[in-house]
């Protein structure tokens, strides 16, 4: 089963489970959680069910396209079910059946792993799912978002698509994965990985990025003041990615680092509060 087939099977599976199938958010994010389809929609009381692929960029994890396991950008399949159904774990296990992974033939475990994104004031409780020892999914019950307890819990299921594909295709190197018949992951991604690693480790213009961060932060705050959540949040995402590049570049000291994170968090709280106020007015 090639990469695109695998993704499409999972997407359709969750679509059949009542999830809205969405496209990836068109901005750089570090994880599917940062997409407004997750971060904003898990706030408040409104039910929400969605599935989407989210390419996730982590500049510090770049390895110049040379490491068989680590990537500057990997792909997550993100599922949000709010409120969670009582058989959500079984539903997830059924999705693995589609990929030919049956519990009777493997060792599938839910191993405690609690998750936290301080930059969003978000935290959850859950597991990493092990497939014969390999961690293939993060399974989380949101407990907090935007610094507040969530009134209605959402389940977030994040499939690590490369890991899962390597398992299904029995490949030891991510670049050898078959994406489409005759097209490998390496054909599509290896050069991009190399270039982005060179950029974030060696070439990124620190001064320009610092300025960009400041500008995006200002713009985001200005939009919060105008009560326009979407542009405010989109500029927050730009801040977050800019900071990640700066961090990978190795120029951010400890106290600076905390200060940057606090600045992004302030914007996240601002957006979350606006979102909740809107919901309460409805």
């Amino acid at each position, binding site marked *: 089963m090639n990469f695109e087939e695998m993704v499409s099977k999972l997407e359709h599976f969750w679509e059949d489970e009542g999830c809205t199938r969405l496209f990836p958010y068109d901005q750089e994010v570090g994880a599917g959680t940062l997409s407004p389809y997750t971060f904003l929609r898990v706030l408040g009381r409104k039910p929400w069910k969605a599935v989407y692929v989210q390419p996730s960029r982590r500049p510090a994890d770049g390895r110049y396209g040379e490491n068989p*396991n680590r990537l500057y950008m990997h792909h997550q399949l993100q599922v949000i079910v709010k409120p969670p159904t009582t058989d959500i774990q079984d539903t997830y296990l059924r999705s693995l059946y589609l990929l030919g992974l049956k519990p009777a033939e493997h060792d599938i475990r839910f191993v405690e792993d609690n998750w936290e994104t301080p930059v969003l004031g978000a935290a959850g409780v859950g597991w990493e799912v092990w497939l014969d020892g390999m961690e293939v999914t993060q399974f989380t019950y949101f407990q907090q978002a935007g610094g507040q307890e969530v009134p209605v*819990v959402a389940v977030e299921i994040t499939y690590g698509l490369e890991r899962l594909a390597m398992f299904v295709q029995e490949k030891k190197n991510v670049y050898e994965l078959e994406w489409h018949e005759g097209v490998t992951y390496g054909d599509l991604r290896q050069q991009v990985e190399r270039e982005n690693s060179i950029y974030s480790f060696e070439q990124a213009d620190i001064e320009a990025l610092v300025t960009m961060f400041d500008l995006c932060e200002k713009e985001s705050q200005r939009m919060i003041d105008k009560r326009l959540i979407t542009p405010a949040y989109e500029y927050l995402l730009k801040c977050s990615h800019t900071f990640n590049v700066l961090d990978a570049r190795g120029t951010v000291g400890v106290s600076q680092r905390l200060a940057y994170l606090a600045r992004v968090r302030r914007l996240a709280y601002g957006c979350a509060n606006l979102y909740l106020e809107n919901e309460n007015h409805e």
Partner: protein
Amino acid sequence: MSDLLIEILTEELPARFVDNAQAQLVEHVTTHLDESFIGHGHVRGFSTPRRLVVLVQNVKEQTDARTTEVKGPARASSYDAQGNPTLALLGFCRGQGVDPATTYAVDVAGKSYVYARKTVAEQKSSELVEAFLPRLPHEVTFPKMMHWEESGFQFARPIRGLLALLGAEVLHWEVAGVQSSNTTFGLRVGKPKPITVTSPEDYMRRLREAFVIVDPAERRRLIEKQADKLLKPLGFKLGDNMGDLLDEVVNLVEYPSVFLGDLPKIATELPESVVRSVLQQQMHSFLVYSQNQNVVPHFLSVRNGLTDFIDIVQRGNESVANARLLDAAFFIQEDMREPLEAYVGRLDTLIFMDKLGTMATKTLRLERLAACATMYASVTREEEATLVTAAHLSKADLATSMVKEYTSLQGEIGGVYLSRAGGSPNIVSAIREQYMPRSPSEDIPATRLGRLLGVIDKVDTLTGILGTGFNPSGSEDPYGLRRAGNGIVRTIVESRESVDLETLVKKAVEGYQATGSLPHPEDLQQRVLDYLKGRITQYFKEKQLTREYAPLENLPLVELGSVPERMQALADVRTVSTSVVSAYAVLADSHRRIQNITKGLPAVTSLPADLLLTDPEELVLRQSAQAAAPRILQFLAVREYSEAIRTCEELAVPVTAFFDRILVMATDERVRSARLLLLCYLKYILGLVCDYSKLT
């Protein structure tokens, strides 16, 4: 009589919570049964990652009828001036269904109250159990809780099923939107099919058929037996101290099947500590050893499930081990492009602790403390210089990719890198040992420098945390304060090292003042020392040596390392003592008297030559004391504690004669102060050995 079975079915509980939750449930069920007056037999707990179970044997169908006393209103407000019952009394009696004439008065803490005796009829146990069942899940607490449904109920993980059977009777209860039923679920294989159970015995049988072993002790035995079966024929065994990992694995599986995997080739090129860390911590698997303690190229792992298709599981785990070890090898290769020294320069990007600056400033403080080691430890100048180098490099590995990825390898990795680069073995072992003992079961550092570096590091940490104003009371230990304190105490006591903690702590406080400010520096040296004294007392208490430690409690902290030998000496001297009234008993009495009389006066280490002493008893005592003191000091200096004690005992006779004949509080002030001074001198001499007054 029938058995009672209670099951709370959950999503996978964290392995580390399971044992404790099981124990809590047993305790609460027992309490509820007893408080409901339900006669019952043995209460046993069981658990798996997905269920908490209690089985109570021989539960009586109903409670016996019984009489009970109920407290009513105060007698004073129960009758009016004419002696007629008031509304208060009548109301109470109506509520309890008793006749006012049958009430009687009882005095409670000096006040008289009206009491009624009433009869409680037999009650059905099933109804009483149903009444407490819904409370049970609320009473179990976990270190980390979550909510998942609209009521906001908190548990470790979502509850998905409730079951309670009293014999064949299905009991009804509801918690967090879950209704009880007579069904449960087995191991996660195939489509989940509800299993209907008809009785507690049936529950055990049906679950076993559905591949769930509910008894953790049985799962543990199974794992050990299967492991033995695989390893013995090959002449292999598991490593020592695998208990903690085994405990964890037992609670990660409902049905264990052990398999042996091949370690990938890359493992032979990696340090054993790294392979162990990857296998044990990341994969919950065991390294395998030959009889002569060498790692063999296999690992042992436990599958949750049957042996069917276990070869697939084995291959999967082997390939994960390969990927993870390759990853580790990659990190090591990358890290070793630069010498360890290079990473010291990057410690300013790592926070030591909130409000306590970076690892770079921590390193500076450790170097400073190492550089004055001769002031608080009996080390040579050369050792001191080596200690400074070790301190300088001690935290460098925290900036390496390897430690960032595998934090538990801190120290170990620094040692490996330095050793591979040809570093001095003394420094390598000191860096490697600095975090020992990480747990109560781990040994203290084996080398002198390792012990000193460890103590310096822990004293610095302790000083910093207490300097942030953190109050160490309570059972939580969020900053590892207790671990640091216990590590210092164990290292010194168990190595018998002589470390002047008072000076060391003083220097540590100065270190913080030099590298930045602390939020709460007031009385810091004293607070750190007090905390350490608390840990010392606790240490001996846990060793059940509180009584033996009491006479040594007031020794200066620098003597901590000599406490075990002193205890031994005191015990020895007492067992060989043959006289009818032993010297130590006499000294115990005298020491107490001296302490009372000289209360508030400092001990003195010498006596002036012109002291106004004239009576023979006081002259003899002075002479004996002055003769004994230098000899006691000499014996102490060479750690001949038995000899020191024996020398001290020579004072028993003259001190008794002194107290028999001499009135210390003489009317002549000069005489009185001379005698007090003599006793202050004795207080000093006796105190060198122990506090005799606390010998029992």
